[in-house]
């Protein structure tokens, strides 16, 4: 790392996360003019986008090579009042909360009180959504059955393919013109809507060109004033680049990176899509530019690395827009889930690992930044050396990269109806979500609390915490004659509650389709231009809506306990069990010990327990998979929690697996914390018993002490562990490499461990920024010592 990068990295690490009112002010100014009433809604939105990019401050950081910030400075985060209007109280919470805080200064509060809140109150999309949803949805939401991603952020969750490396904005404008020319106003009743959407796309494309030119002008100005000769030349070169991209297709490595970065800024300025935009298969996209640069002598490896390092810093400067309330609990982090994909296969199915893959791995190891996150796609066609190199990075304990099974992802996507080629061009984004990059809108709609469904089943659908009938009325559990009776009632609750969620999704999708088009994002996802249809309205080639199941380990263990103790061994009656649960095991300690220590658990390759995992998974899949969405897509499931397993645990009383009231649930498809005691192969075997190819992603966390990675032989064995899991169609595995003692020390002396990054659940986070219970959970996770 040279001095320049060191300085930029320090600058990024030291920047304080704060709220910037700039975007909110510009947006409000624009809408206050009333000019939008003369235009269609998408055109109005595009004009607002153009207005913001045209007026927002241009920030060029000292010494940087890739330029552009979403806010006026690094980590100055804008707000999106048209989506979710922060109250003054919300701003106070953001400013004062201990974890993941954002500084809110007096001027922001004043402008919110005087200008932003008065204008947007009653007009935000969040209010629109909450006013539209039926009472069953609200009851279930309040009970903690599911969360709602689109409540505070826009549907996002997509990844760029290779389009921008082939076309400039001027090319896209031309394509838009051609599509507009083909519209048939006689036979196509949607022709008008298409024309308006295409117009909006054109405005948005041109807005980005102007935005880049504003940077070019600023760079030229700085160059004039710059005394140092080298930097002066650099600034002039950067200005030239900004005059070329994004207007035209990039020709050099530097241009490709700068182009992507402008597109990234555009997407996250237009709206606040949940899971930020992502360049995806970076080692594939950049390879032609890298090789060409080496050939024509304009680039060498060192320069390429420096540019990549500069590029990395830009991601770290952009925290996830802050959430509040329940939504903050389910995913409270600065991470905006940009997941760089490396390796995998090419569109023709051949091994995609190349020299740039290894260079980018070096960059990841060197930077050790929270953002962007990174992963490796491992196909059976990739060499072991690729995994070996990655494990060397994992060993350093920074939680990245994580390991994904390309061959499984491809099959998952093909099963959902993608072409083989589109599937191979895909990967995983966010935490673990499979997607066809550049061609798919895959919207995460919310986490679904599988364990809570059992609690409702044991209470005839009644939620004791909120005092409301959140589920449907099912039979009194004391009348269950067999485990099958219980399973049937559980299935009825699950079907009912997923249907509530799906109905809500289909309402929310229409609200976004009608009110919140994203013409800029639509430029980049095929086939929005060809269809003349917005990303949020179903314009993409593939449209998928996910519901993410949470707590598989907990629900499996809880059902297994009932099967074992109430129906098979008859150590307790259902009545007795319910009593123990409502007492939170007070005076039932002996029984709780039996539950914890002497009852089959998921994660030990024990069919007695794992059968229940298959049962619940099958029910959840059947209830959700293939149900239509209101934008022409299909609902699918995946199994990942982010941090929602902590929130979901907080709304559930004691469970029959011995977990006490309020404690976190298991995360992803990992066993409940401490429930696995047969080692990692048994965990992987249990996890592979659910048919993961039916999902769009599962998350499995394994904690290892660093000693696990010592020596070439150990690395080879871990490689076999990964290969073995992937041969059984496992989707993803990540390794948390850190000693419990270090973590405890970090809890005690956070100031000494400011750089400590741990894998949370599909992403890494600063240990210091995690809540105490989450910290405790990470400490507790089974540590597999002894290799």
């Amino acid at each position, binding site marked *: 790392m040279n001095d320049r990068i060191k300085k930029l990295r320090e600058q990024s690490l030291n920047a304080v996360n704060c709220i910037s009112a700039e975007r909110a002010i510009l947006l409000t100014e624009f809408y206050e003019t009333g000019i939008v009433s003369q235009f269609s809604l998408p055109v109005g939105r595009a004009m607002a986008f153009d207005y913001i990019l045209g007026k927002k401050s241009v920030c060029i950081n000292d010494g940087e090579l890739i330029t552009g910030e979403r806010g006026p400075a690094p980590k100055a985060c804008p707000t999106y009042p048209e989506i979710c209007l922060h109250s003054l109280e919300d701003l106070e919470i953001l400013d004062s909360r201990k974890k993941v805080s954002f500084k809110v200064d007096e001027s922001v509060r004043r402008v919110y009180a005087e200008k932003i809140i008065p204008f947007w109150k009653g007009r935000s999309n969040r209010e629109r959504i909450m006013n539209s949803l039926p009472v069953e949805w609200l009851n279930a939401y309040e009970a903690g059955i599911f969360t709602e991603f689109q409540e505070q952020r826009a549907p996002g969750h997509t990844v760029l393919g290779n389009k921008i490396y082939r076309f400039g904005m001027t090319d896209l404008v031309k394509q838009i013109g051609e599509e507009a020319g083909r519209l048939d106003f006689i036979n196509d009743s949607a022709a008008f809507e298409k024309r308006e959407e295409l117009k909006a796309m054109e405005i948005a494309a041109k807005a980005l060109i102007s935005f880049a030119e504003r940077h070019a002008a600023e760079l030229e100005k700085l160059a004039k004033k710059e005394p140092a000769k080298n930097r002066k030349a650099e600034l002039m070169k950067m200005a030239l680049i900004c005059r070329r991209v994004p207007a035209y297709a990039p020709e050099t490595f530097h241009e490709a990176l700068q182009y992507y970065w402008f597109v990234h800024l555009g997407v996250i300025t237009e709206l606040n899509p949940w899971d930020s935009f992502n360049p995806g298969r970076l080692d594939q996209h950049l390879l032609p530019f890298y090789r060409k640069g080496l050939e024509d002598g304009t680039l060498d490896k060192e320069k390429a690395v420096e540019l990549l390092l500069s590029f990395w810093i830009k991601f770290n400067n952009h925290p996830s827009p802050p959430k509040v309330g329940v939504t903050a609990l389910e995913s409270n982090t600065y991470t905006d889930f940009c997941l760089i994909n490396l390796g995998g296969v090419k569109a023709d199915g051949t091994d995609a690992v190349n020299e740039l893959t290894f260079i980018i791995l070096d960059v990841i190891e060197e930077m050790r930044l929270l953002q962007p996150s990174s992963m490796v796609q491992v196909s059976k066609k990739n060499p072991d050396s690729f995994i070996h190199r990655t494990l060397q990075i994992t060993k350093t304990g920074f939680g990245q990269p994580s390991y994904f099974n390309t061959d499984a992802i491809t099959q998952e996507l093909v099963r959902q109806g993608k072409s083989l080629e589109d599937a191979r061009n895909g990967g995983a984004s966010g935490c673990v979500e499979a997607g066809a990059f550049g061609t798919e809108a895959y919207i995460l709609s919310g986490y679904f609390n599988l364990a809570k469904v059992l609690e409702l089943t044991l209470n005839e659908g009644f939620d004791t915490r909120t005092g409301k009938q959140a589920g449907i009325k099912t039979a009194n559990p004391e009348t269950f004659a067999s485990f099958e009776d219980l399973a049937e009632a559980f299935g009825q609750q699950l079907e009912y509650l997923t249907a509530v969620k799906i109905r809500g999704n289909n309402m929310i999708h229409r609200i976004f389709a009608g009110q919140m088009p994203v013409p800029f994002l639509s430029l980049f996802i095929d086939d929005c231009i060809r269809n003349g249809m917005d990303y949020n309205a179903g314009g993409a080639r593939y449209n998928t809506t996910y519901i993410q199941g949470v707590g598989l380990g907990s629900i499996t263990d809880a059902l297994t306990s009932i099967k074992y103790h109430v129906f098979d061994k008859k150590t307790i009656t259902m009545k007795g069990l319910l009593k123990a649960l409502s007492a939170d095991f007070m005076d039932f300690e002996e029984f709780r010990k039996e539950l*914890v220590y002497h009852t089959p658990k998921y994660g030990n390759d024990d069919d007695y327990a794992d059968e229940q995992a298959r049962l619940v998974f099958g029910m959840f899949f059947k209830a959700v998979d293939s149900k239509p969405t209101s934008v022409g897509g299909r609902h699918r499931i995946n199994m990942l929690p982010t941090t929602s397993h902590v929130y979901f645990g907080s709304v559930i009383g004691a469970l029959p697996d011995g977990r006490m009231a309020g404690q976190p649930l298991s995360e992803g498809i990992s066993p409940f914390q401490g429930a696995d005691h*047969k080692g990692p*192969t*048994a965990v992987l075997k249990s996890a592979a018993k659910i048919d993961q190819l039916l999902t769009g992603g599962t998350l499995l966390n394994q904690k290892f002490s660093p000693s696990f990675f010592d020596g070439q032989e150990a690395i080879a064995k871990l490689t*076999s*562990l990964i290969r*073995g899991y992937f041969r059984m169609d496992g989707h993803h595995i990540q390794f948390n490499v850190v000693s419990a003692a270090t973590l405890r020390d970090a809890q005690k002396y956070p100031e000494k461990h400011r750089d400590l990054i741990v894998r949370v659940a599909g992403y890494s986070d600063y240990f210091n920024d995690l809540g105490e219970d989450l910290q405790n959970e990470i400490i507790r996770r089974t540590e*597999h010592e002894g290799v």
Partner: protein
Amino acid sequence: MQGLVFDIRRFTVHDGPGIRTTVFFKGCPLSCIWCHNPESQYGFPETTIKNLSLEGRIFKEEEVSGLWMNVDEIIEEVEKDRVFYDESGGGITVSGGEPTSQADFLLALLGEMKARGLNVALDTCGYVNWNQLAATMNYVDLYLYDLKLMDEALHLKYTGVSNKQILENLLKLAGFGKEIIIRLPVIPGINDSDENFGALKLFLERIKPRVREINLLPYHAAAGNKYKRFGKLNSMKNIKSMPMEALQGRKTELEGLGYTVKTGG
């Protein structure tokens, strides 16, 4: 026919090549004073009291160490990780205690494993009559052969038996061309002397082509609790764990002679 087993452990990565499952037989003819598995010594099930902790409260429970199992039951368990053996070139290690102490059962088990195409390693102290050891050769791909002390009198003193048969068997095994990993627990003040290593080197010279590698296993004082639980006298109370680095010199020394040497375990 049943065998007495005290543990079956998956994902063992120090008992031979690749990812392995290790089956631990209970009962051993030796009584090494440094034994870190005191529960493996007696050839019968033993009941101990175990403390289970829950929210700070301690529950005392009886626990039986040693389970009579038949071949099918063991096979069912060791078959579970086959996918990982395949990926890593691993397999099963039969260890103990001393597996050859249950010779008939051992042969039945090894035979079934071999028939299933599993890679089999046998971890033995070598204190067994030759015919019984020879019978395992058809089924075993690799021997993990423990050598503790080269001096007969000291061997008798610290393990309770002479090493004559052990050394003879090792020579014979090598003579049949079997692949062998030599495993040496290094106990401070007992067998880490120049004399012992000198004798070891001389002896190994005779079987050198068959020695695939040498594992030096540093003594660690982790078994103190177990001795207490099993009501056995821990004669090693005052001996401290040996840090891995302390073996570096011996490792280099043996590597200088052309052996592949690994430390740890």
